[in-house]
C-alpha cells in the first residue's frame, strides 16, 4: 500500500523526472551525444568518435533503433550503397529530456 511506504528522504525525488535507462548507459549516452550534434554519420565515423568495437557499437545502435531514437538511412554514393545513421525527432526529444532529468537529479543533491 502506498501509505505503508516509508517517506522519501528527499520528498522531491518522487516528482523528479525518471531517468531514461536506454540513454543512461554510458556508451549509448556517448553515441546519442555525437548524433545529437551532427546531422548524420556512418558506422565507421561513429566507431572512430566513440572508440567502441564493431560488435559493441552495433549492439548499442540496435537498442537505440529499437527504442525509436535512431534511424537508418540507406543512400547511394556513386554506385555503392551507404548507410547513414541519424537521431529521430523522438530521439532528440528523449535526449533533451534525459539531460534535463539528470540536471534535476543533480540539483536535488546540491
Amino acid at each position, binding site marked *: 500500500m502506498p501509505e505503508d511506504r516509508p517517506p522519501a528522504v528527499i520528498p522531491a525525488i518522487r516528482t523528479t523526472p525518471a531517468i531514461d535507462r536506454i540513454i543512461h548507459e554510458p556508451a549509448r549516452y556517448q553515441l546519442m*551525444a555525437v548524433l545529437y*550534434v551532427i546531422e548524420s*554519420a556512418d*558506422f565507421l565515423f561513429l*566507431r572512430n568518435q566513440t572508440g567502441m568495437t564493431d560488435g559493441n557499437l552495433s549492439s548499442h545502435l540496435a537498442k537505440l*533503433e529499437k527504442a525509436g531514437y535512431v534511424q537508418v538511412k540507406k543512400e547511394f554514393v556513386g554506385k555503392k550503397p551507404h548507410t547513414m545513421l541519424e537521431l529521430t525527432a523522438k530521439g532528440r526529444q528523449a535526449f*533533451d529530456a534525459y539531460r534535463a532529468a539528470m*540536471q534535476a537529479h543533480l540539483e536535488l543533491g546540491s
Partner: protein
Amino acid sequence: MDTNEENDLQAIERRAFQSTQDDGFLELQFGAILIILGITAYIDDTGIFNHYYGYLFILASPLIVLLGKRYITLPRLGRVRFGLDRQMRQAKMTLILVASVLAGLMIFILGAMGVIPIPNTVRPYVMPAIIAGMLFLTLAAMGYFMNNWRFVIIGAVFAGSELAIPILRLHTDLVSPAGVALTTGGVLITIMAAGVLARFLRDHPRQEFPTEAPLA
C-alpha cells in the same frame, strides 16, 4: 539547457569536426600553393619561360584535398554530415576568404597604380607588410572558423614569407628572393602537413573489411 551543458555539446561537435580536419590535406594544399608561387616567381625572375602557366597549377591545387579526402580520409574516418550551425560557420569562412582576396587585389591594384601615397623610402616594405597582414588575418580567421589552430601557423608562414621578400631583395644577391622566400615557406608548411597526415594514417589504419556492420 544551461550554459555548461551547451558547452559540453559544443565541445563534442568541435571534436567531431576537428577529426575531419586532422588528415592534413588542406594544409598540404596551402603548402603546395606557396611552393607553386615560389617556383613561378623563380621562373619569372630568371626568365626561363612565361611564368603565367605556373598559376594554372594553383587552380589545380584543390585536387589535393578532393582526392585525398575521397581516397584516403573517407575510407578511414567515415562519412559525416554536420548540422546547420557548422554549415553556417563554413559559409562565413568562405565569405571572409572571398572578401579578403578581393580586398587584397584592390589594395595591390591601387598600390601599383600609385593611388595609395607611399613614401619611396618605405615603399619596398609597405605593400609586402599590408599583404602579409592580410594573409595572416585571413588564414587565422579560417583557423578560427574551422577550429583548426594549424592555420594560424600557416598564416604566420605565409606572412613571414611575404615579408622576407623585400628583405632578401635588399640585403642579398639572390637571383630570385621571392622564389627562395615563398618556396621555403611552402616547404615548411608541407613538412608540417606531412606530419599531420602521417599521424592520421597511423591513428586510422585502412580497414581490411567493410565496417558497415549490420545492426543486430
